[in-house]
């Protein structure tokens, strides 16, 4: 296992990139800790696959270095990086048994028979395939084959990192539950450095210790699932994480107060004077319909069973409010309040840290 260092790393698919806009991956400086599980999360085109391909060695970056531990692997071939990879679609030898498939990476490196036997048994137990170990892989379902791919990816204990590229795409929805939680417990048990690429927030947040959110070729936040929910560092993170995403509302901020339209609200903290585009971010879970507070006009109420999503107009901006399943939404509910402590402030899309000690 190794720590992964990204040093001034950037990539452009153009031979002579002119400006930042030509870079599919904008400059990155990060150290990813040994033994942690990271997810690269973002919509298609955000640069996450470019980054994964640089880490795996399929792509050489146009600038900067990548280090595994102390070793510079920027120009090293994939085979020399000592990594395991699991792809979108299962890669399984049909003519081999499940056992032979799982043992393959160990046999290839000349591990001894007793070790292989024990290790394969351990992995088979983790992926729940002990009963089919001596069956040929041919004829197994796509789900089962992908489990074999996952197991084979994890069979070697000495890899620098384990890379997953949207590994649950072919898995049936109810099976995804099982696999993403299994992956999480596999990580907790084996402690590999893992990098998992996905556009699915549930996969990313469930699997990873740290989620790397990417947008437009840039890493906009690296954080725990709680941090991404409570303190999105960029308005994109607020929008992308959560369903529905965070409400982002243009505002004027003065100290510990925010002004939207004609209304005024208290913030949980004080802020230094701000320049540029100023907005406040409020999660739908932290907004409440009420009979006092700021004026709001309800447009539509959607009953999604476990709660209601209220679509409303707030000074000309569309906002979403989550209400309880049993909440009565009466005609007198013409006001909204926000939990002051849960409101974030943004200037030019980036979160502004509140002033220490001021409230």
């Amino acid at each position, binding site marked *: 296992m190794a720590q992964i260092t990204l040093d001034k790393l950037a990539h452009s698919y153009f031979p002579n990139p002119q400006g930042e806009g030509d870079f599919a991956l904008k400059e990155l400086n990060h150290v990813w800790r040994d033994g942690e599980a990271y997810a690269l999360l973002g919509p298609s085109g955000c640069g996450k696959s470019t980054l994964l391909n640089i880490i795996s060695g399929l792509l050489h970056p146009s600038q900067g270095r990548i280090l595994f531990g102390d070793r510079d692997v920027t120009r090293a071939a994939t085979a020399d990086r000592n990594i395991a990879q699991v792809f979108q679609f299962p890669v399984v030898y049909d003519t081999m048994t499940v056992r032979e498939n799982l043992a393959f990476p160990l046999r290839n490196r000349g591990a001894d028979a007793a070790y292989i036997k024990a290790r394969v048994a351990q992995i088979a137990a983790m992926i729940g395939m002990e009963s089919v170990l001596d069956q040929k892989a041919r004829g197994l379902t796509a789900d089962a084959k992908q489990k074999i791919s996952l197991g084979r990816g994890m069979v070697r204990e000495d890899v620098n990192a384990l890379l997953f590229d949207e590994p649950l795409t072919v898995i049936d929805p109810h099976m995804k539950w099982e696999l993403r939680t299994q992956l999480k417990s596999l990580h907790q048990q084996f402690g590999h450095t893992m990098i998992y690429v996905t556009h699915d*927030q*549930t996969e990313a947040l469930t699997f990873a210790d740290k989620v790397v959110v990417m947008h437009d070729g840039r890493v906009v936040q690296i954080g725990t699932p*709680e941090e*991404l929910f409570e303190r999105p560092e960029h308005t994109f993170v607020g929008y*992308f994480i*959560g*369903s529905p995403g965070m409400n982002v509302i243009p505002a004027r901020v003065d100290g510990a107060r925010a002004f939207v339209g004609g209304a005024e609200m208290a913030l949980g903290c004080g802020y230094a004077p701000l320049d540029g585009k100023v907005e406040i971010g409020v999660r739908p*879970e932290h907004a409440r319909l009420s009979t006092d507070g700021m004026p709001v006009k309800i447009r539509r109420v959607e009953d*999604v069973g476990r709660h209601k999503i209220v679509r409303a107009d707030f000074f000309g901006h569309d906002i979403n409010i989550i209400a309880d399943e049993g909440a009565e939404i009466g005609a007198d509910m013409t006001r909204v309040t926000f939990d002051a402590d849960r409101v974030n402030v943004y200037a030019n899309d980036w979160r502004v840290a509140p002033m220490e000690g001021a409230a």
Partner: protein
Amino acid sequence: MTLRLEGVCKDVGAQTHIHTTDLELVKGTMNVLLGPTSSGKTSLMRLMAGLDQPTNGRIFWNGADVTGQRVQDRKVAMVYQQFINYPSMTVYDNIASPLRLMGVDKGEVDRRVRDSAELMKLTPMLDRKPLELSGGQQQRCALARALVKNAGLVLLDEPLANLDYKLREELRVEIPRIFEESGAIFVYATTEPEEALLLGGQTATLWEGRVTQFGPTAQVYRQPQDMTTARVFSDPPMNFLPVAKTGGKLMFGDGQVAPATGRLAELADGRYTAGFRPNHLEILQHAPDAMQFSARLDVTELTGSETFVHLDHQGARWVGLIHGVHDLQIGAPLSVWLDPAHVYIFAEGGQLVAPAAYAVAA
């Protein structure tokens, strides 16, 4: 305008894909077919469209028997999970193509294409080719082509399944609005309970080729007639535990006791299965008269704004759902609570004998 299925069933070889089904869909309604993969949603749609012929039974459109009629002769439009557009044509020509095939005059084609593009927010993209559009825009183009025909029956087979969740979120909000303006009979197949709830209208739950219940969506969700329907219409799945009724009391697995009030008072003494939804499991806070259960926390899953909590309760797997993102201690014992008002009671055969009190009030 009505579509009526009378005793329709479909066998393929020795297998029954659709068991005998009676269903009536009326003008201006959204009808959701909700069920897991291979439960018969697409088979049923193909029968409705006339793409397949039923083994038995008849299909009526506005009272006229159309069972043997070819799909081309029916007023039907269909949208599939894959975005099907003509790659070499512009968005404008894609939307116009069904009208041109119908021989509609040029001025009328132009007017309808522009209306339909406006509705689907495609006006700025009319001159582009489908592959120059995002996935969401490609699917809007396919939807616009289906709507432009003014077909009386519009069949949508998991139209959002191939989109990423943010685009899905946006289109889910728009589809009911589009549908309200069209007045057609919409049939919408999905595997996701939340999608059915967002679409509203009527829902038919499907399980192994059978329609297990059909009615207003919120009613099917809150008052499922049996355990199968409750399972199909719950994601994550409904939790179950044994319960016995003795005199005026309900005795739960762990010895928790709740008074049998309301409809439960009339229930015969005996053994039943209690069911409750994941969001009704109370974890961080609880109602004063809630029953306490002990469990072990196995795993948590985070969706971005909610936390799924997987629990082991005496060997049974329970799932809870709480708002917000919470970092809870895996493997630790956890007390959870359940309000008796949130409990459904099923007979041992699976039929609902008493809906939860909250669901009757809602």
